[in-house]
Each structure stands twice: as structure tokens, then as C-alpha cells.
């Protein structure tokens, strides 16, 4: 019993909730603002989506099945597919009892059932609509404050017209224990950075585990592009770390590595 149990595997499945249902996303951040100052922001929790679902005029065995989903997964999770919303999967559970109400002979209605997404749960298909569902997490926020942390080593901030953030955070790339890191709340991520003829290679870690290497070399200075994508990541608060490898492409004239921006799946 897990994400493998799908409530509504097809668009015509009888357990599909009535469309469209309310889709909420509880606040996961803090704000603080002085009288005339900027609104500071900090992500603090990893709560997921919250749906308010209705099933009107269902047959008795469908109502019983919905009730079974509540009972069975009170302490676990199952998959629900938003067929109207592009077929995106969500993994979670009903957090309020399913209480069918009779409407006519053999017909029942179930209303206001809350489905809460569960952080940390594996998924059959992880969110993958990078165009519509992902957001940019840039090196600097809109107030100009740097959000990427220099954990160790020397990292230099500099304006860069080719960077997605407008700035890059550069490291000499020769000390393999140097690190820059960024914490986000969401699912998978894409690592974006400009490339050029004098850049080296680095490894990227997700929550402390390497998920691949990136090569910042290109024959000509090139605007930011996606260098690495890690899609199959459960909802949660994750730390992405960039660490130099002290290696470079044979054609590169340097080993400098860059932090520019992440694209994070929400």
C-alpha cells in the first residue's frame, strides 16, 4: 500500500472527483516587513498541495470504495491523478473522514473531503511540467540579497549578462572541499548556468548525495542553459550543493565554476 495504489487511474474512472475541485497550497514561508522596509521571505516548511474534493451522486460501491481509501490510508498515502490539470500525480491521503450521504436509491454524495499531499512520499510519476509548474530560484532575490550560501571556500559575486540571475557566484574550482548551497522547498530541480571557454567542472549534490557532474566549458561564452536536471525528487525541503571537481575539459583554459540559478518544481 503506497503510491502504487491509484485512486483514479483513468480520466473516466468512477472515483474521479467532480471537476473542478478547490486546490490550495498552505503557506510554507515566513514574511517580515518593517514600516517602510522590504518584505523579507523565508521558506520554512514543506507542506504540499491541499484539495477539497466532492463526489456527487455516486453508486453505493463507489462510496464504499472512497471510504475504504480513507480508512486504509489514514497512516499512509496513495496516488491521485489530476486528469483535468494535465495528469499530474499527487501522493497523499484523505485527512478528514469520508462520509457518504444518500441522495436517492443507491445513490450517495460525498462532499468536502480534504486530500493532503504528503512530503517525502515517493511517486509513480514525478511532476514534470517544467514550463508551467516550475519556478526560478535565482542567486539574488528581487531585493538584491544573495540567497545562495557560500558554505566554504572563496566565492565571488559578479554581474554576468549571460547568467539567468544577472549575476554569478564564481569559485576558482581547484579546491574540492569548497561548497556553495541553496535550500528550496519543492520536488525536483534544474541547474542552470552560463558556460564559457575558461570554465571547469563540478559535481552537484542533492541533500548530500551526488546526482551528477556538470561541465561549464563551451567554446564560446554562452547564455545560461540547463546543465543538469534531477526530476525524480519527492516533495520536501532540499539542499542543492555545488562542489568543484578540480577538473576541466581539455580545451578549457580554466577551472572556474559558477552558480547561477535553479529551476525548482513546485
Amino acid at each position: 500500500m503506497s503510491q502504487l495504489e491509484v485512486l483514479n487511474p483513468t480520466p473516466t474512472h468512477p472515483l474521479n472527483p467532480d471537476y473542478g475541485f478547490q486546490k490550495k497550497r498552505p503557506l510554507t514561508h515566513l514574511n517580515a516587513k518593517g514600516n517602510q522596509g522590504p518584505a523579507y521571505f523565508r521558506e520554512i516548511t514543506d507542506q504540499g498541495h491541499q484539495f477539497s474534493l466532492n463526489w456527487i451522486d455516486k453508486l453505493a460501491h463507489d462510496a464504499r470504495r472512497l471510504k475504504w481509501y480513507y480508512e486504509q490510508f489514514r497512516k499512509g498515502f496513495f496516488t491521485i491523478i489530476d486528469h483535468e490539470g494535465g495528469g499530474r500525480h499527487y501522493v497523499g491521503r484523505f485527512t478528514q473522514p469520508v462520509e457518504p450521504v444518500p441522495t436517492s436509491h443507491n445513490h450517495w454524495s460525498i462532499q468536502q473531503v480534504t486530500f493532503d499531499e504528503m512530503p517525502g512520499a515517493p511517486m509513480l510519476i514525478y511532476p514534470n511540467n517544467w514550463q508551467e509548474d516550475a519556478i526560478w530560484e535565482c542567486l539574488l532575490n528581487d531585493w538584491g540579497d544573495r540567497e545562495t550560501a557560500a558554505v566554504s571556500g572563496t566565492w565571488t559575486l559578479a554581474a554576468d549578462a549571460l547568467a539567468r540571475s544577472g549575476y554569478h557566484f564564481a569559485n576558482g574550482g581547484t579546491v574540492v572541499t569548497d561548497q556553495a548551497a541553496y535550500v528550496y522547498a519543492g520536488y525536483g530541480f534544474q541547474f542552470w548556468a552560463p558556460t564559457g571557454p575558461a570554465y571547469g567542472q563540478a559535481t552537484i549534490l542533492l541533500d548530500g548525495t551526488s546526482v551528477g557532474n556538470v561541465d561549464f566549458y563551451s567554446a564560446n561564452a554562452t547564455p545560461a542553459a540547463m546543465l543538469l536536471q534531477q526530476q525524480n525528487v519527492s516533495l520536501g525541503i532540499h539542499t542543492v550543493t555545488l562542489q568543484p571537481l578540480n577538473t576541466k575539459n581539455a580545451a578549457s583554459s580554466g577551472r572556474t565554476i559558477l552558480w547561477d540559478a535553479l529551476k525548482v518544481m513546485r
Partner: protein
Amino acid sequence: MASRSGPAPVLLLDVIAMDGTSYHWGSTAIDEAPIYPSVLPGTPPTAWLAGLANPPANYDTHYFPWLLSASGFNQTRAMRAVSASISVQNVSGNTLQRDLAGLLSARTFEGALYCFREFNLVKKEAEFEQHGRLTLNSEGERICTFGASLLFNPNDYDGQPFTVSETCQWNFGDRRCGSTAANDGAFSSPCDNTYTTCHQLNRFGGYLNTVVFPTNPGTANVSENRVEYRRLV
């Protein structure tokens, strides 16, 4: 304040932590010296400043917009010790480390000197100014609250810890007494805690008086003025 006349004043807080580093926080970002001169310039926290994307050109004339509120400042004619409350945001910073939480763990703000001002934007003058010392009341996820005490606070003073007495209050031979004479079983060496038997007069721990009682008063010592007591009974 704004409801009575003109714009709301800008709140400015200058702090010197116990290690000498200074901080300038306001209810808005200000970088307009000498209109807003900081009154407690000190040593900038260089390590923290180095991590900023856009460090101010002049740290001592820049106010970071971290100050959320300040209330409870009272001025009375009495010597009442009042403590105000100053709230500073604890949200900004990079995604790994909050600015204020990092500063609080790296420095000592307990007892830090502060100067709080309400600055009138129209008049370009401070309408209210108070100096004192900070105490850390609470450090929350969003807000850190300091208590702000006045510089003059008699509650902070220690009273006289010893009894006022003509006899010395030190134990014979301890560090404060300083006598190195043997404290033998015959009690020949120890003092009687009196001035006349003290071995270390320069450390005598009693209060001396200058009254002398002559043992055999002569005529000169006796008042000859006649006093008539008038009593009711």
C-alpha cells in the same frame, strides 16, 4: 504619531555589541549621511558584511531595514526603571542562514549599548532619543525581541553585601584577611576580629569610628550646662 501630524517618524536603532561591533537598523533602508548620522559608530562586523551581495559603501551611515517595531519607551520624573521592547526581523539572509540568528550566535548582545531614535523626516531631526542597554527577550522564527533598559537603573546596582560593624568580617587567615600567622590550638595568634588585635591593619574589614570614650571622665569632659527637661507627666 502619524495620526496627529505629518508622516510617521522613521525608527532608528544603533547598537554596539559587547565585542565592539556596531549595528544600525531602521524601519526603512537609509543611506543618507549626514542626514541620519549614526550615533554609535563602532567596528563593522566585517565577516558578515563580506557575505552581502551589496554591502553599503559606508557602514556607519547605512541603516538596514530590519527594525519592525519599538514600543514602551517611557520618561517619568520618578526613578522608575522601565524597559521598552524592540522587535527586529529574523527572516532575511541566505537560504541556509538567517542574518540576525547568525549575528546573535556569533556576538554577545546581552548588555549591548543602544541608542534608539524616532526621526522626523520633515524636520530632519530626532524627535525622541533614548540610550541604554539591551537584553535578549526572545528569539523567534520571525521576530527577535530585545528588552531595552535605561542606562540609569538602580535595580542593577549591588547593595552593600556586608554588615556594617566595628568588628572585622573576614575569617582569620583567609585571602581577604591576609594574615599568615599560625592559627594554633592555643589561640595565641588569631585575632579577635577587632582593630586592636588585627595582624593586617591595611585589610581590616570593619568600619572604624572615631568616638573615644574616656574611662575616667574629668570635669572638663562633663557638661556643666543646666538643662531643664519639660515633660508632660
